[in-house]
């Protein structure tokens, strides 16, 4: 018969068991109060504007939240709530500039994004000419990145194959380590290297004594930057290839090199392609090496081995520093083009990786 008396007791017990919680209304109240106090303080003393109100309100909200929560829910819960609020606000804080970048890019870039921009170069465009375009820069970017890819992909694949399939012991470990270290070489240093090595030492022999700036030199510098990226991503992809595939191939009497070329590489191909595309996207956006070794230039130059070449990123930099009042519009349009190119490559690479479920 004790069961009859039990039910009325249960809710009461539940109430006691559950810790007291701050209601949502209280949170809203703290927020409103924080904003009000902040606005009052700022505008009454006249020490700042809207931005200060927001910043101060955030601070007051955090303090108020901590105080209220520790009074009602205890110290641990208060800490939890405050950190959670901080983490959420960090996210919002970081979104603001990034949204601003995207917004200014779109609104400013659209102004000059027309046919002339893609079909003309900057040749004979003076400070008073509103037209002019980035045709030469687009040609330069495509050629330089293309050559860099041609140089880097075989080299990078071979290096990754060595590290994963052949390399043993300390030497392979050393190469892995330095590939990682090479990832962090600043692009300007890569540019200086090619400047010192190719432009100042090698190219005078090919160019009757004068240092010759060229698109090919830019490709060399970009290769230095792309190589470690490609090696790292390929390496990871090769490691993901299941061992039974290799073993099956060996069991059929296929030599190791053929197994690598015919079994391992095709299996890892989608992931490798993803890595290559990401490396290309990174290289296409590099300004500093191109600035140092390709020289820039206003005219269209299809030959990457002779004479100055420009690139999209360099075009943005040069137009941004130009005194003409039409230059900023061109700079933004080129920046938008460049970002579009890079993002399309990146998105395609990521989608490819996702579809094949091989990469991450």
């Amino acid at each position, binding site marked *: 018969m004790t069961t009859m008396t039990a039910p009325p007791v249960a809710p009461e017990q539940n109430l006691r068991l559950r810790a007291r919680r701050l209601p949502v209304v209280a949170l809203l109240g703290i927020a409103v109060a924080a904003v009000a106090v902040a606005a009052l303080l700022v505008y009454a003393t006249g020490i700042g504007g809207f931005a200060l109100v927001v910043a101060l309100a955030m601070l007051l909200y955090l303090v108020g939240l901590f105080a209220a929560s520790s009074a009602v829910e205890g110290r641990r819960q208060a800490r939890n709530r405050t950190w959670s609020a901080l983490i959420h606000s960090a996210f919002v804080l970081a979104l603001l500039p990034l949204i601003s970048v995207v917004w200014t890019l779109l609104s400013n870039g659209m102004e000059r994004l027309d046919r002339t921009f893609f079909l003309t170069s900057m040749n004979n465009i003076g400070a008073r000419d509103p037209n002019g375009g980035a045709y030469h820069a687009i040609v330069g970017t495509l050629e330089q990145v293309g050559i860099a890819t041609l140089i880097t992909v075989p080299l990078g694949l071979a290096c990754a194959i060595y590290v994963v399939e052949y390399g043993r012991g300390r030497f392979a470990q050393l190469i892995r380590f330095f590939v990682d270290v090479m990832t962090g070489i600043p692009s300007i240093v890569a540019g200086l*290297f090619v400047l010192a090595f190719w432009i100042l030492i090698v190219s005078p022999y090919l160019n009757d004594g004068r240092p010759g700036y060229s698109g090919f030199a830019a490709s060399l510098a970009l290769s230095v930057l792309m190589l470690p990226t490609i090696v790292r991503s390929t390496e990871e992809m090769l490691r993901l290839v299941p061992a039974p595939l290799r073993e099956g191939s060996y069991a059929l009497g296929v030599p190791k090199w053929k197994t690598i070329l015919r079994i391992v590489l095709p299996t890892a191909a989608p992931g490798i392609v993803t890595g290559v595309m990401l490396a290309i996207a990174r290289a296409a956006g590099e300004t500093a090496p191109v600035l140092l070794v390709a020289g820039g230039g206003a005219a269209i130059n299809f030959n990457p081995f002779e004479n100055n070449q420009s690139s999209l990123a360099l075009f943005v930099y040069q137009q941004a520093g130009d005194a003409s009042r039409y230059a900023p519009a061109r700079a933004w349009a080129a920046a938008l083009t460049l970002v579009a190119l890079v993002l399309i490559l990146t998105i395609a690479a990521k989608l490819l990786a996702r579809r094949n479920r091989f990469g991450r």
Partner: protein
Amino acid sequence: MGDTPDRSANAGTGGPRVTLGHSRSAGAALSVDVPVTPLDRTPDGVGSQDSDLGPGGTGLGGGGALPRRRAFGAERIFHGFTMAAGMTVLGIIVAIAIFLVAKAVPALDANTANFFTYEGWSPNETEPKFGIGALAFGTVLTSLLALLMAVPVALGIALYLSHYAPRRVGTALGFLVDLLAAVPSVVFGLWGRDYFYGPVRDVSAWLNTYFGWLPIFGGDGPFGRSVLLGSLVLAIMVLPIITSLSREVFLQTPTANEEAALALGATKWEMIRMAVLPYGRPGIIGATMLGLGRALGETIALAMTLGIVSKISFNLIENGGNTVAANIANAFGEANDIGRGALIASGLVLFSITLIVNMTARAIIYRRREFTETAA
């Protein structure tokens, strides 16, 4: 026609050509003509000459020594090729050091000031004077400030994406962060110079009015194109990198650890502090160091946003500031021979700094990785 007796002789000795004879019997008349040209054999393999393949040696792989020997040749070539490719990586790093030194030495010889302590940068004069002091200081100051601002925010975002946001939202936003990491630095530079400059100048003026008694916010203008602007832009640039690396690490926290913490009654923050952060610490350190490496080497964005004044000063808001990389981009245009050498010398310093930072970062990651792998 000299091949025919050869083949039959082999067949008689019971060598590998016995099987060949069987396979050839159907089309023997045809096969006799084909291998007469010696050219036909050479591409078959390295060992074909001395082993005397006989006609149609490629037709079968059933022989004993033959295929293995050919494979051995290709195997060696391929192995050697990949090894050479691996060594190019080492070669490139060594070559960078050698060529930079080679081109820097003449300029350093011509330098009439102390390279390490002199604050100015005028290598193009008849009496070249240049020093790395102010530039190296500016580089380190800007990068450290940028990291100071970026790392807490980046960790916050990473935690939000990995543990607070709904899974779908987290994945989608993580994708977005990865995309932002790909945005070229020149775009950030352009944005910082044309748009971010305004708000930063206003904030600088405000800081100067109310906190001007602090040396870092002192001075009497003009404000804006300052270390503050440069490091803010830099912070925004390294944010996606640090975020995406640490998010990945946070996502790898063993679920068992998290659930154990929660089961013991930990709040969400306590769970993060006890399970997620300790597990992810090597990853966080590594991500921070990589962000530092990127910040140290950043060129164009800083060349566009800093005031380019080669002077050692802790003032953050007055126009000024310069870094090694930004100085290279800015001064390269009008550099003569000595000037180029001087820039290469400064690049060498930058290379050494980033090399040390990167090697430290990698060493930390490697050691911790072994540690966590054995511990987990």
